[in-house]
């Protein structure tokens, strides 16, 4: 199964403060382990929401809203796309991530029939 792991902005990614080098090294080590285990299909870090845009749909009307937005804890700062055999496996991997704060969300990507 494929899961999307979302790092919430309240978590570790504060765009203003670049991560400490040791933290980066730990993160890289963890990520390498994931890649070596054949788990990672993709990953990305998002630029801060101050550079983001939203499009709101109301009937035929489209409104573009500039970032940043207020609900910081719900904002996505980065993502991983993982191939795992169960949601439990994803959770066990995620628990090993070298973070000491924040919230991560794991969501299964539903696949169409037969996939």
């Amino acid at each position, binding site marked *: 199964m494929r899961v999307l792991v979302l790092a919430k902005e309240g978590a570790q990614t504060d765009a203003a403060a670049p991560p400490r080098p040791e933290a980066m090294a730990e993160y890289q080590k963890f990520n390498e382990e994931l890649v070596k*285990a*054949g788990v990672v299909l993709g990953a990305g870090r998002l630029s801060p929401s101050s550079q983001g845009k939203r499009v709101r749909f109301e009937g035929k009307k489209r409104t573009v809203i500039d970032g940043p937005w207020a609900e910081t804890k719900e904002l996505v700062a980065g993502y991983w796309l993982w191939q795992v055999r169960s949601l*439990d496996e994803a959770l066990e991997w995620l628990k090993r991530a070298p973070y000491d704060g924040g919230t991560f969300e794991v969501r299964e990507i539903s696949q169409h*029939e*037969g996939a």
Partner: protein
Amino acid sequence: MRSPSTRARDEAFAIDTATAEAHRAIEAIWRIESARLIAGLTRTVGDIGTAEELAQDALVAALEQWPTSGVPERPGAWLMGTAKHRATDLTRRRKTLERKYEELGRDTERDQQVEDLDASIDEDVGDDLLGLIFMACHPVLSKDARVALTLRVLGGLTTEEIARGFLVPVSSIAQRIVRAKRTLDEAHVRFEVPRGAERVARLGSVLEVIYLIFNEGYSATAGTDWVRPALCEEALRLGRILAELVPTEPEVHGLVALMEIHASRLGARVGPSGEPILLLDQDRALWDHLLIRRGLAALERAERLGGAMGPYALQAAIAACHARAATAAETDWPRIVALYDAVAQLAPSPVVELNRAVAVGMAFGPAAGLDLVDALVAEPSLRAYHLLPAVRGDLLRKLGRSAEARSEFERAASLTENVVERKLLERRAAECAAEGMAG
């Protein structure tokens, strides 16, 4: 207020839920850790059978302790530590036993093993994993044995899961695994990462096993399922792991490319009622473009490493021709013919010739394709191969020879063991019959 008995029951239930949750977590951890665990232990004790038993012992200990103690911070290290403990006990026991039999030569070996124990645990797990892969895929084993053992010790699958994947009785798989371990033992197969010319040959055996697993999932040879995606995913995972372990081997990337591109079509090759949809009829919007991108990248890596002419890279290149075409009509058939020429030179086989004939039929017209297929009709190895009449029927139909096409499709249907495929072929035959009436 609830009665004490109700509360007791609720508490018992709460404990059960917690236990069930812990067991699920342990199962997931086992899937993550078991290959590394068994690899490290095999390096230490020398044989997969003992290593697996030790690892299983550690798993049992975890199942007993973790539901109450909680999952340790580094579960992999805990499992390894526990298994290592048992290994030391076991080695001592064996030593005592062997001393009784005065097996002095082997004794020294065992002494060394106890000393190696500590050293081996912290060494590079990559080499351990590779050693285990080479051992489980050793050419001394039959293909079936290699596949079962690989899924068991590297995939962390249970015997039941493997049996389900291959639609064979659990007892057959269990027996295959037991026999495989015995064969490795009797042949004194060493735990090692082979080098030089031997490595090339041994790697070929590893790739073959992974591809067999993939194909078993991709085109189930028997039964009612057209695909068993779990086996494809397992093979892909093993391939991706191997590509990280031996990143300079072009054929590994070739195989990964081939599997990624084929897997990209998994969602498109089965219709709503489970019927197979052949490549050229597939809705390409349903192809998994992430896997296609990964496949094309892996192919590029194989080619950059000088492996464009490797058998897997060539097949991947053919698959890539389809993956790159936005519509079936845009397929670069002449290039596919050229690639099949290369495959045929490398490893000539009637099946390759048949595939080449299909490509020639597409590139240069059905008559040219039919000439090549007709030359294969007398080929003894293809006598029971359902795709020969299926391809021939297809070409005849395009040439308007419906009656001949119909009997070819009927013959193909009678030869396949796959129920779903048989239905597809019978439908083709019926369509030809209708066309014959109309013409």
